[in-house]
């Protein structure tokens, strides 16, 4: 099915199952600990062995020699795979990192070897006996020092144009009445998902099956086949449950390659979970940025010039952190300039992490907007609303499909009692706490991509959906089930959802906030075909057939759904593809974040006291799981604002705090009551589902809202994330 004109009325508009805050259909499995994750598929892998990855001990250089003598003879060791015996390995098409090092070492903890042994303990113990001799080379680790060596990168597959200008930015900025020119920095961040990257790999002849934890199974199949040099048809990936990914499990990383190589060498299935201290340097991270923002306005606050430049670093050829993305279209302004630059670094690969580009970019832009509002003596909410636009300011005739940013801001302000925010900084106090409020807009693209599904209706009236979509804890199972239930006119209890298996029809996968809207649209397409088959089976005209309450109606006649099944089952399969609507319309999701913080006047400890997000993201397929996505994202925003910081040792070339003791993410005690408001809306230009993603929108802007609240509380403007005690200390007077 091709979607090439805005959706009219369709079965999803019934909203009998879709749009309801249903519990997760996989909830009981999760809460009883019976949802099986990659590492736990012991049954189909009887006699499996364990793999343990040895990470490179240096940041940059080469392997001179590997002495396997002691490791090979250690108890239980079955095989050792290094670059010397792995055979030729290629790269995948998404990540640029080489997933097995040697002889060159590109970054710290790059996989140097996988040790396969009978038990995990034996593999780990033998790993410590492997003697790798290195020659250390001088690497590039100091991003700030290398900033000036940055160049404009090539356009990536997912980011915006690295450089663009509309009108005459410089001229307009120079002549603006009020100007801001500031620089902001964001640190490297780690996804820190709960489930480590894990795989069990099994070879049956030349066929490879991997139980793994990968967000995009279609990319995974492509990349694993590529890396190993085997046909795609010989690869099957299974990811039924994923314990968090946040973009860090997009496709093939070292665990799956090492498990595949280890299983081939040992002649047995091999399971590997990356040990937590390896993950931070071995896998991917959100790259640090330095961002310069210039805004020029008229006296009344109308933006006339807006410029956003961002610098980041990566391995050679790695993607850019496209922090300028949100500035392309968030606010009006006739003269605009965006510019990305990239330095080469010898650290682990910088790549997608929840709302790549927007999250980092808005950490800077939305502080800049707060600073600008202050210069203008305007309320920050009013300043943003004044500069709202209904047309894409970079392409003046292109309208936003739907855009309720102003409503998000004004409704949020009312709900949050924004009018209680002190106009002058550092004036609201409760005991030893300085209180402040902050706001930020949120914007995140609403990409949608082709997705296929198969649906089966059996004699019992049970509808089974099969698609290789994944569920990272996001709620995919449930919204896919809701979609099929709505389309076939049955309750959710009549639907079985099977996902996370690359042998099923190819879906969008989960990433870039496209999963929910894309995968359910694929299910929609397949269900339309199934409806037609059911109607024909019952002798109905498909055009005049309705499905509701477990029945199929046409005119005055109706049958129970299962009556259509004459033999075993009716099977239908289809793929949703897209025309040009995403070019005709600017499709984005919008929101506003409001935060109240307290800052201890003595110690400068920052505690978030209240949070509110107002989201505008098309039809909300399941308000309960959508809310869970948003509050999880808001929590991540607290981490980004106040603590998350992968610290680079610039001498030795690695992320030092590479475990969950050193890399702090919020704990329960950091998170106050979080309120989420979803604006009721549909976007018919997206797909028949009229929905958009929301999982990344919830993060974008949160950190800046916190930064702005800290400023409002203390009068101290911190432009270098994270906002930690040491950056406030000495700047707050106790008698304030």
């Amino acid at each position, binding site marked *: 099915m091709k979607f090439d004109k805005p959706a009219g009325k369709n079965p999803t508009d019934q909203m009998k199952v879709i749009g309801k805050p249903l519990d997760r259909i996989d909830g009981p499995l999760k809460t009883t600990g019976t949802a099986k994750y990659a590492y736990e598929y012991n049954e189909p892998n009887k006699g499996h062995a364990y793999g343990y990855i040895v990470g490179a001990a240096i940041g940059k250089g080469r392997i001179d020699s590997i002495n396997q003598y002691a490791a090979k003879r250690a108890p239980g060791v079955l095989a050792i795979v290094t670059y010397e015996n792995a055979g030729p390995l290629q790269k995948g098409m998404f990540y640029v990192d080489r997933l097995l090092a040697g002889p060159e070492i590109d970054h710290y903890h790059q996989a140097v070897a996988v040790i396969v042994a009978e038990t995990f*303990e034996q593999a780990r113990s033998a790993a410590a006996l492997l003697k790798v001799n290195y020659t250390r080379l001088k690497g590039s680790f100091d991003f700030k020092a290398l900033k000036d060596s940055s160049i404009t990168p090539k356009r990536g597959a997912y980011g915006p144009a690295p450089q663009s200008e509309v009108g005459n930015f410089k001229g307009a900025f120079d002549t603006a009445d009020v100007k801001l020119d500031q620089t902001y920095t964001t640190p490297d961040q780690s996804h820190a998902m709960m489930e480590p990257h894990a795989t069990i790999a099994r070879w049956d002849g030349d066929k490879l099956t991997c139980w793994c934890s990968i967000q995009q199974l279609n990319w995974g199949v492509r990349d694993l086949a590529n890396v190993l040099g085997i046909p795609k048809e010989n690869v099957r990936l299974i990811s039924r449950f994923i314990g968090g990914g946040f973009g860090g499990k997009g496709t093939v990383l070292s665990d799956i390659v090492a498990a595949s190589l280890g299983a081939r060498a040992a002649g047995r299935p091999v399971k590997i979970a990356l040990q937590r201290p390896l993950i931070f340097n071995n896998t991917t991270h959100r790259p640090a940025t330095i961002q310069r923002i210039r805004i020029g306005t008229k006296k009344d606050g109308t933006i006339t010039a807006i410029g956003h430049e961002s610098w980041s670093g990566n391995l050679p050829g790695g993607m850019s952190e496209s922090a300028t993305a949100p500035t392309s279209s968030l606010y009006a302004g006739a003269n605009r300039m965006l510019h990305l630059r990239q330095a080469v670094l010898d650290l682990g690969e910088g790549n997608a992490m929840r709302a790549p580009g927007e999250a980092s970019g808005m950490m800077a832009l939305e502080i800049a907007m707060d600073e600008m509002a202050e210069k203008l003596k305007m309320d920050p909410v009013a300043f943003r609303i004044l500069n709202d636009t209904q047309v894409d300011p970079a392409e003046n005739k292109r309208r936003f499909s739907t855009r309720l940013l102003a409503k998000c801001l004004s409704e949020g302000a009312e709900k949050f009692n924004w009018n209680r925010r002190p106009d002058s900084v550092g004036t609201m106090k409760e005991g030893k706490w300085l209180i402040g409020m902050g706001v930020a807009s949120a914007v995140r693209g609403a990409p949608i991509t082709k997705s296929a599904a198969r649906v089966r209706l059996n004699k019992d009236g049970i509808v089974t959906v099969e698609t290789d979509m994944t569920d990272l804890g996001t709620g995919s199972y449930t919204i896919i089930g809701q979609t099929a239930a709505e389309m076939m006119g049955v309750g959710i209890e009549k639907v079985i959802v099977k996902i996370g298996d690359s042998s099923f029809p190819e879906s969008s996968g989960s990433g870039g906030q496209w999963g929910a809207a894309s995968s359910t649209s694929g299910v929609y397409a397949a269900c339309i075909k199934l409806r037609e088959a059911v109607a024909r089976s019952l002798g109905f005209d498909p055009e005049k057939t309705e499905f509701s309450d477990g029945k199929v109606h046409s005119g005055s006649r109706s049958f129970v759904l299962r009556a259509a099944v004459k033999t075993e089952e009716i099977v239908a399969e289809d793929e949703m593809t897209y025309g040009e609507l995403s070019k005709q319309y600017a499709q984005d999701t919008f929101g506003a974040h409001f935060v109240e913080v307290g800052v201890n006047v003595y110690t400068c400890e920052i505690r978030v006291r209240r949070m509110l997000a107002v989201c505008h993201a098309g039809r909300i397929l399941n308000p309960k799981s959508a809310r869970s996505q948003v509050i999880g994202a808001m929590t991540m925003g607290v981490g980004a604002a106040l603590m998350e910081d992968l610290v680079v*040792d610039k001498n030795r070339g690695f992320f*030092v*705090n590479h475990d969950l*003791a*050193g890399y*702090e993410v919020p*704990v329960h005690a950091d998170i106050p009551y979080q309120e989420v408001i979803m604006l009721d809306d549909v976007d018919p230009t997206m797909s028949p589902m009229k929905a958009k993603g929301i999982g990344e929108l919830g993060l974008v802007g949160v950190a800046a809202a916190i930064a702005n609240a800290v400023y409002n509380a203390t009068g101290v403007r911190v432009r270098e994330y994270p906002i930690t005690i*040491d950056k406030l200390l*000495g700047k707050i007077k106790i008698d304030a």
Partner: protein
Amino acid sequence: MKSFTYERVHTPAEAAAAAARMPGSKFLAGGTNLLDLMKLQIETPVHLIDIGKLELNKIEHTLTGGLRIGALLSNTDLAADLSVRRDYQILARALLAGASGQLRNKATTAGNLLQRTRCPYFYDTNQPCNKRVPGSGCAAITGFSRQLAVIGSSNACIATHPSDMAVAMMALDAVIETINPKGKVRLIPIADFYRLPGKTPHIETVLEKNELITSVVLPPPSGGMHFYHKVRDRSSYAFALVSVGAILHKDGSGQIAVGGVAAKPWRNKSIEKVVPLGAKAFTEKLFAKARPTQENAFKIQLVERALEGILKEGRS
């Protein structure tokens, strides 16, 4: 983890004797730190002596009105003890500021005193660390040092001691009671218990080889108002940037120990007479010999501010 042998002992004397019999052995109590370090091969004992079943998990009043805390009493039980909560609030507060509920259930009094530093370079066996491998160097001094020591450090090591409990014990003038393989009992005031790194940062306490802590004795309650302010980047489950334990008395004097700044809880009794002069004067004196790095110099001011908050609360 390296292979090791294991035995369970039933009396303190037996434990110390077993250690003397098996060179390279370690005592195992709650295991919350030791087992993690063994998995990373930072600790590589060839033999574990499980002391978990020793009758050292009691808390009793001493004849002089103090408290004798068994070495194996869990942090949870210690923090919940009625006498501790009434008479040694600083200790209860420090305990509850540390770790998580699950860890406190397993962690013991003696184990808490003996836990090892959380310096990230100590934990990464690819990096030089004089505490882990004597003579290998210190990567932390020129590396990421924000969490590390500002005083009492040396050119060999700038690690901090991570315990909260020990900070309270220091303020309370606790005494550590031990037994050696010959059955000899020794009393060590906590002020003398920890060693500064000097050139031998791998030697962290004055405990002799195979000497076993049996209990920690608190002096009679000193009264006063008790405070424990642990300052960190997140609200819970993090090691202190700094922590200030203070007992303030009506006459203006105080007992003040500071955590997160050195290889041991930092206290200088001789300057406590200046407490009435305020946080600034006291902190200046306490840190007169500080040698912070650029990254952690803020800790000194942070101690001052935390103490100022405590003094303000104490006065009001």
